[in-house]
């Protein structure tokens, strides 16, 4: 098995970095070797943030950044206006987007498989973050378990339960609901 590389796109305050850490800890629980890291730039609430996770069987020594991810996770679809979220994505790579309706996802590229889940609505329904600034990362990670067949939903939920700074049960519920509701767009 070759190393699996995942890139997360979000905005400051949406939890993209925590999402990359949740994925790493979930994969670790399943016996994988992992590493997760953010791109440190100017973290400002609302400003674009990028984070990364590597998953492999053998210990991960490569410390340079990720340029050709296997999976891309987009915590806020409005980012796609200004940021090229598909940059370097491997052919047949998968894109998980927080978006209410798979059909309205514009600019889909046939080389990749798209999955959507309305993580924003799910997060708000579980009272995660505020209505104008919902924290969508745990919901999106539930979607990730469905869309990208590396980590199981059980390991994701366990990581969330252990690591969610606040409202662990609500975060777990949001992740489970997202897992159920995630579907392939354009399928």
């Amino acid at each position: 098995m070759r190393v699996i590389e995942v890139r997360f796109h979000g905005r400051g305050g949406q939890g993209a970095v925590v999402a990359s850490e949740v994925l790493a800890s979930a994969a670790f629980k399943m016996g994988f070797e992992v590493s997760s890291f953010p791109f440190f730039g100017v973290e400002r609430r609302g400003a674009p943030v990028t984070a990364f996770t590597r998953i492999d069987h053998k210990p991960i020594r490569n410390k340079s950044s990720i340029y050709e991810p296997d999976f891309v996770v987009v915590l806020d679809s409005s980012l796609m206006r200004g940021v090229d979220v598909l940059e370097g994505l491997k052919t047949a790579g998968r894109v998980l987007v927080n978006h209410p309706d798979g059909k309205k996802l514009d600019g889909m590229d046939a080389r990749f498989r798209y999955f959507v889940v309305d993580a924003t609505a799910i997060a708000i329904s579980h009272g995660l973050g505020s209505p104008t600034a919902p924290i969508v990362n745990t919901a999106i990670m539930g979607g990730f378990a469905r869309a990208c067949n590396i980590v199981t939903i059980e390991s994701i939920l366990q990581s969330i339960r252990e690591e969610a700074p606040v409202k662990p049960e609500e975060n777990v519920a949001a992740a489970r609901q997202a897992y159920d509701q995630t579907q392939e767009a354009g399928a």
Partner: protein
Amino acid sequence: MMGKTTIPEEEFVFPGSTGCPGCGANLVMRYLLKGLGDRTILSIPACCWAVMPGYWPSNCLKVPLLYTAFEATGAAISGLRAALDIKGIQDVTVVGFAGDGGTVDIGLQAMSGAAERRTDAIYVMYDNEAYMNTGIQRSGSTPWGAWTTTTPVGNSHGFKHESKKDIMAIMQAHRIPYAATVSVAHPEDFVKKVRKAKDIKGFRFIHALSPCPPGWRMSPMHGVEVARLAVETHMFPLYEIEDGRVVVTRKGKGLPITEYTKFQGRFSHLTSQEIESIQESIDENWRNLLAKEASGT
């Protein structure tokens, strides 16, 4: 008056700076430069405002700006003024513009030196009450009772137990010709005091409260309202110290402190006794301020 502005309309900042939505420090800079105009040179140390202009080659100010090391603002404005003087360049306002940590903590020594040397400059401290650029760690200017990432409240109720450093009293002790507090909720008063400071020779100090939505755990839309209530609750009184004498410039209604804290998650852990002890210390500070004013000291 329809369409007439109450402060100068000319802007000295470009949009596109990278402050958080609702950032008070943007307003502090905006009003400061409206008061000072374009014959101004700024010196800014490490702080949110060192990042605000954006990555090179982006610059969001219409006046020249020198970035400096964290503790060096006081020294930098001294160097700038000396160079302008020896080169015979006149009628330029030299301004140090720094955060609270960069002023009351790491930069205090250099500022004190500059003040003691009667350096002809204005030092503006935009006070968001913690080290915000590095992610909300407590500073000497963080108020008693506040949560920050280094005064966590989890179980041990570890909020900040030291009171906010009274930098205005410290500057008064330096016997400088002028110091004033200003609020982003009162731009007219803000610009008026800046213009007054501009025309005074020697070392002048401006203390601007600078609300910080992420750092104070509040919604960005309350960025101005919370500054307004800081004045009305006497948490942040508006006054001047002119040649050593205190002059209060806005009495404020003396609303209960809860009117101020209710917006802010950084105070949400406080018990009613703790809120009460804040109220008591605010009332005492307010009495002392009025006493100072009455006794002309």
